[in-house]
């Protein structure tokens, strides 16, 4: 008798736990679902003219990983100048962001690290072909550990035997730029590793595993004292242009356009220039 009772109690507890966990999972799903939709959906539509001060609503900006510092800064300034607006930021590799937007992620603004990924979205009619505006450029720079153990001084030095060079794989924008510089300069590099992202290249240099890496000027700048940057004239052979545009289906097109104007305007340009980006 007691045994049955115990078993029932155990069963009841198990059912309770299961029910609780199912509820929790469902709540979690609902929570995150409404969280992402909250931005454009929950806010009241603005009917006022798009002048600063009258803007209301929240937008989600999808920006290339290399824009993390500058866009975080710019979004905070934009929100301060336009009370009533909020900006959610989502940083990832440009091609990841394109995949996310294509699969239906709620983005209002897309800032790409190259024109190729922007045209993927204009081709898919998710962004008006006339919308993208170039707002910055970036070039490659050699990053070496602070002690520069291999004594690198030029692009040609990277091809010297024994130099452990790490670059981006040709499939990603920084790797495509590397190939372009190689072809333009006639120097053939033999890297020990072709990484999937600039951060991975930088990581190999800061940890001292690699003697040198090819990354963007802005990456060297944001890495601070962890690496030493060496500019090289051949980098002009591959200039990366960053376009930005409002996504067609944006529910907050006014705020989205205002943010794009802010990035391409004087404040945006000076913040980007401070981070090492070139003017478009």
């Amino acid at each position, binding site marked *: 008798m007691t045994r049955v009772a115990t078993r029932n109690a155990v069963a009841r507890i198990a059912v309770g736990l299961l029910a609780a966990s*199912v509820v929790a999972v469902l709540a979690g799903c609902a929570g995150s679902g409404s969280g992402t939709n909250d931005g454009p959906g929950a806010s009241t539509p603005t009917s006022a003219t798009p002048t600063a001060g009258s803007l209301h609503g929240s937008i989600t900006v999808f920006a290339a990983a290399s824009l993390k510092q500058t866009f975080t800064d710019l979004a905070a300034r934009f929100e301060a100048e336009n009370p009533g607006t909020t900006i959610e930021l989502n940083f990832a590799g440009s091609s990841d962001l394109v995949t996310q937007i294509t699969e239906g992620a709620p983005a209002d603004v897309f800032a790409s690290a190259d024109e190729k990924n922007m045209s993927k979205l204009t081709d898919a009619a998710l962004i008006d072909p006339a919308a993208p505006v170039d707002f910055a450029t970036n070039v490659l720079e050699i990053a070496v550990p602070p002690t520069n153990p291999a004594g690198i001084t030029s692009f040609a030095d990277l091809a010297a035997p024994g130099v452990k060079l790490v670059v981006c794989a040709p499939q990603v924008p920084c790797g495509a730029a590397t190939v372009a510089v190689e072809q333009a300069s006639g120097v053939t590099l033999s890297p*020990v590793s072709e990484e999937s992202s600039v951060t991975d290249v930088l990581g190999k240099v800061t940890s001292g595993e690699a003697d040198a890496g090819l990354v963007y000027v802005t990456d060297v700048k944001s890495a601070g004292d962890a690496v030493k940057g060496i500019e090289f004239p051949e980098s002009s052979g591959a200039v990366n242009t960053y376009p930005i545009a409002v996504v067609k289906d944006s529910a907050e097109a006014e705020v989205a356009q205002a943010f794009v104007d802010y990035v391409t305007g004087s404040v945006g340009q000076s913040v980007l220039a401070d981070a090492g980006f070139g003017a478009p």
Partner: protein
Amino acid sequence: MTATPSASARYAGVPRWVAVVAAVGALFVVVPLVGMVVRVNWAQFIPLITSESSIDALWLSLRTSLTATALCILLGVPMAIVLARTQFWGQKILRSLVLLPLVLPPVVGGIALLYTFGRRGLLGSTFDVLGIEIAFSTTAVVLAQTFVALPFLVLSLEGALRTVGTRYEAVGATLGAAPTTVLRRITLPLVLPALLSGAVLSFARALGEFGATLTFAGSLQGVTRTLPLEIYLERETDPDAAVALSLVLVVVAIIVVSIAHQAGESGPLRGGLRAAPATTAPTPVRKSGAA
């Protein structure tokens, strides 16, 4: 315990809601696989998985995973025996530490390996003196895979050793067999099924290794770019190739899991061992597949 009739008879007693929740759980695992399979570009499937970079990645993955599995057996069997058959101060802590890679995010394992075997790492200069360069080499891939896969073998083998008990070993010893003879003739044959399933699980873990390899070994075709790294990279430009290669990994994983299941369930010595009472306390970390 393993007979089918009794299993099906017991099934009649499972409450319906358990079966319903179980079905939801199964769908949760299966539906994403279906989602991937429907995206496969079948017209291009063979060219995609037989491209030079794909073949290089698959071949490298198989080679390094097999080497890592061999290393796991070499190091893991003695570790499991020591953990299961001896008692010493700090054993519990040691066991937790050995099993740590099981719960660590692989990228953390990669960072740990980097600061140990890397050029500026704890042992980096030692290896430098010996003329061994680990950074950006296939050796680094094998090290990363062994690091994450070793606990699987130790875990399943230790559980089996404890379940089997020391009765037969004691009999062998009283009949005059030396410890090594007992190990070779009695202990290892007894736990062979667990050793096999543990090895297959280690192989599977090594094959899927991504985070530690990416952090520690780098990524270069034919040298360090294993199949998971190739998939990650192809995703950037050629999603079709990434999906096709993912399917290859899924198929390999299914084969591996079924082998591990067979090895774990149909050991020839199983039936006899069930009767043998365990003379040591059951391990708290025993796995059902190994027991």
